[in-house]
């Protein structure tokens, strides 16, 4: 479904990605793992067209994404929960949800505000709060809801549960598994490896702008060396 | 030394040598041009302290220049026409400190109010105060209203004779160099670091324990006083002082010099002043429609040269100052 081939990206004159290769099948839940500053966010932003790759290719359902305007990429069915939440501060919580909502691909059972509230009841009482006044955790929930409202085929979450209380975290993992079960693919960055091992099918470990290792949860659990070397425990 | 320091030295050396050479070879007009340029560059350098390094975009800086000029003009006016004997003098040793003091005071009072606001609100409130001063002076008939003040006499100073164009240029040039060094010293000092930090993230600076407001106000007063000094020179240069000197479009021009040359750099404002004035002079002698190419030039610089001319000239790997 999503294929990255020798993807390279530069920030000005400094290179951040040195040829990322990655392959994600439909319906899979995959993770990007790696220490701070290794290029996870850069990979994701390159896929979304937020930063412009300097080489390589990205295809989604056979369509080339490199060079594509970011909104066109999104309309092909990619939904993003960005690092740092990026809630629209001057819109109310409700407006944040509906402003960019769409159902381009004609999902038969599209996401609605009600479904999001069922997932995150905490949000419902804050409908008319301005985005920037929400607490950190509330913003994170909203960011996930907002991405779901675009009814994507592939949901990408960067630091999916940063700042969320343990209870909410559990709920999100649960929800993600459920969503995946309904056929949505998911690419997630997070640091709660325990949880990720449980829900993900495939893991990609990024080290200095390259995918150094990939494999299933079972393989990763079994492979102490990789964990030591790239993840640090 | 970096490429940039060499450039600064070269430009300043040219600015010191060329105008007198023009003057002595029978082109006195270009000396005048250079004097005006140096004076405006002082104002631009002082504006750069708060605009470039402090992130405080003052859109009323011409008011300081104008006030400085009136601080020279009003004593001279009374000396010529009588009235207010305690003020009447032609001594530069009174007029120039007066200009600096008046502007510092004006900066202190208006800055105390303006600095409560941020961003574009700050831009506009500084302009509002400048406009108030503008209309105030326009309404004082004693000082010529909008016709302005004609002073037939320049400030009397020891050593230099301002009626001699070479002396006037020399004084302006030296003042410019001093102003540049002063600003450079300030921005590199601990005070300057706080000022620049507050530009990037005032909230963080406050939680670190810096009273951002007080630091900004201090910078604002320093900058205003320096511009007042430039105004005193300008009054002497033109021997004619008009409220038009503090019109908002003049403040705009000072801003443009800073941005054009490159904000938050030592040479930037001077380079901006040079390009601005030389382009104005050169283009306007071709056609009365010179605003068209001039406007296109401004747009081109903005669109294609990030960080102004200094940004364009910045060598690879050389960081900002």
């Amino acid at each position, binding site marked *: 479904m999503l294929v990255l081939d020798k993807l390279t990206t530069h920030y000005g004159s400094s290179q951040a990605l040195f040829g990322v290769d990655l392959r994600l099948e439909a319906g899979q839940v995959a993770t990007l793992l790696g220490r701070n500053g290794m290029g996870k966010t850069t990979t994701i932003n390159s896929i979304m*067209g*937020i930063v412009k790759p300097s080489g390589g290719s990205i295809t989604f359902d056979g369509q080339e994404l490199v060079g594509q*305007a*970011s*909104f066109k*990429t*999104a309309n092909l069915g990619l939904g*993003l929960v*960005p690092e740092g939440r*990026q809630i*629209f501060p*001057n*819109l109310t919580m409700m*407006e*944040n949800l*509906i*402003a*960019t909502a769409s159902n381009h691909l004609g999902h038969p059972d599209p996401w609605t505000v009600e479904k999001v509230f069922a997932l995150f009841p905490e949000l419902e009482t804050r409908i008319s709060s*301005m*985005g*920037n*006044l929400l607490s950190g955790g509330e913003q994170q929930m909203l960011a996930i809801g*907002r991405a779901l409202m*675009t009814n994507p085929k592939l949901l990408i979450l960067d630091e999916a549960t940063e700042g969320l209380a343990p209870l909410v975290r559990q709920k999100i993992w649960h929800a993600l598994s459920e969503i995946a079960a309904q056929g949505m693919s998911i690419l997630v960055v997070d640091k709660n490896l325990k949880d990720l091992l449980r829900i993900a099918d495939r893991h990609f470990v990024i080290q200095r702008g390259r995918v150094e290792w990939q494999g299933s949860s079972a393989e990763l659990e079994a492979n102490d060396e990789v964990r030591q070397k790239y993840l640090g425990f | 030394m970096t490429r940039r320091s060499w450039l600064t030295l070269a430009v300043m050396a040219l600015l010191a040598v060329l105008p007198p050479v023009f003057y002595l070879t029978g082109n006195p007009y270009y000396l005048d041009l250079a004097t005006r340029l140096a004076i405006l560059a002082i104002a631009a350098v002082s504006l750069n302290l708060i605009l470039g390094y402090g992130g405080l*975009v003052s859109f009323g800086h011409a008011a300081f220049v104008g006030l400085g000029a009136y601080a020279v003009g009003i004593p001279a006016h009374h000396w010529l026409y009588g009235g207010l004997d305690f003020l009447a003098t032609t001594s530069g040793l009174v007029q120039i400190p007066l200009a600096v003091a008046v502007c510092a005071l004006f900066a202190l009072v208006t800055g105390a*109010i303006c600095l*409560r*606001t*941020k961003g*574009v*609100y700050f831009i*506009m*409130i500084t302009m*509002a*105060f400048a*406009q*108030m001063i503008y*209309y*105030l002076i*326009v*309404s004082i008939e004693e000082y010529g209203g909008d016709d302005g003040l004609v002073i037939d006499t320049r400030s009397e100073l020891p050593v230099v004779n301002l009626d001699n164009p070479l002396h006037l240029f020399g004084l302006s040039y030296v003042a410019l160099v001093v102003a540049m060094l002063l600003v450079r010293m300030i921005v590199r000092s601990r005070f300057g670091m706080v000022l620049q930090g507050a530009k990037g993230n005032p909230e963080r600076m406050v939680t670190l324990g810096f009273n951002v407001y007080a630091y900004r106000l201090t910078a604002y007063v320093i900058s205003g006083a320096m511009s007042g000094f430039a105004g005193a020179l300008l009054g002497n240069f033109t021997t004619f002082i008009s409220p038009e000197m503090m019109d*908002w479009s003049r403040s*705009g021009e000072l*801003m*443009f010099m800073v*941005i*054009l040359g490159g*904000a938050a750099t030592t040479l930037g404002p001077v380079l901006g002043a040079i390009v601005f004035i030389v382009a104005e002079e050169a283009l306007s002698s071709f056609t009365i*429609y010179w*605003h*068209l190419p001039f*406007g*296109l*030039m*401004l*747009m081109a*610089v*903005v*669109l294609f040269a*990030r960080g102004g001319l200094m940004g364009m000239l910045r060598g690879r790997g050389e960081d900002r100052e």
Partner: protein
Amino acid sequence: MDFSLLIIQALNGVQLGLLLFLVASGLTLVFGILDFVNLAHGSLYMMGAFICASLTFLFGSFVLAVLVALPLTGVLGFLVERFVARPLYDRDHLDQVLGTFGLILVLDTLAHLIWGPAGIAVPLPGWLQGQIAMSETLVIPTFRLVIIGAGLGAAAGLFWLVNHTRLGMLIRAGASNRTMVSALGIDIQTLFALVFALGAMLAGLAGMLIAPITEASIGMGNNIIITAFVVIIVGGIGSMKGAFIAALMIGLIDTMGRSFLDDLFKLFMSSDAAENSAPAVSAMLIYIIMALVLSLRPQGLFPPRTR
């Protein structure tokens, strides 16, 4: 003080206020919402006036001219967005100020080259030319009422657009975080271009409406742009409601100041002193208001709920 004069002056103030609103609303859209400082907004106002003036003579009808000139100024706004504004969205305000100042010089000089320095007086059709007598002493030029109507109509439309449509939400969202709006599947570039064109049309409309009263002249935009900035600052940048209320407030205070300040001053100073100081103070009035408002409320009267 004469009561009907007071009413006439109030209406004059409202009319000035609404005209200011037309200019300020476009400015606040582009500035408050696209976060782009467009000093050349006033030049679009001027271009609107000149285009409409030329077309009035071409068609022989002011109304027809306005109808054709409106989309033309929209197209002009579109071009300005494409070639000047768009490359500058990511830059800081200062670059935008410098770039659009350059644009002012270009547009003013172009207007000088195309239409000459003289300016054009725009004739009104007979039915707009006259006055309406509301009572014996209350007589108002018809056209001023037309301006009031147009201003109110535009205000209502804008208010609805920005606050009650999804387009409005997107525009506001785009103002705070363009990248994110785009990453969520919205073609923000086209959206911004449309908003910019809308702003240009509003400014152009104001120019068209003022041209029959003053005239189309070079530099007319530079006179109004400062006042329009004062309006949106006093109202709170990006707030349509703020722009509306501040425009009316400034229109009224300015008009009332011009009409009654000298009488007011005569109450407590000599009539000579009053006659001298009243015009000076009334010229300063809008700046005094702005400084006062900002020293009490540093974000204007109606700060947008966040920034």
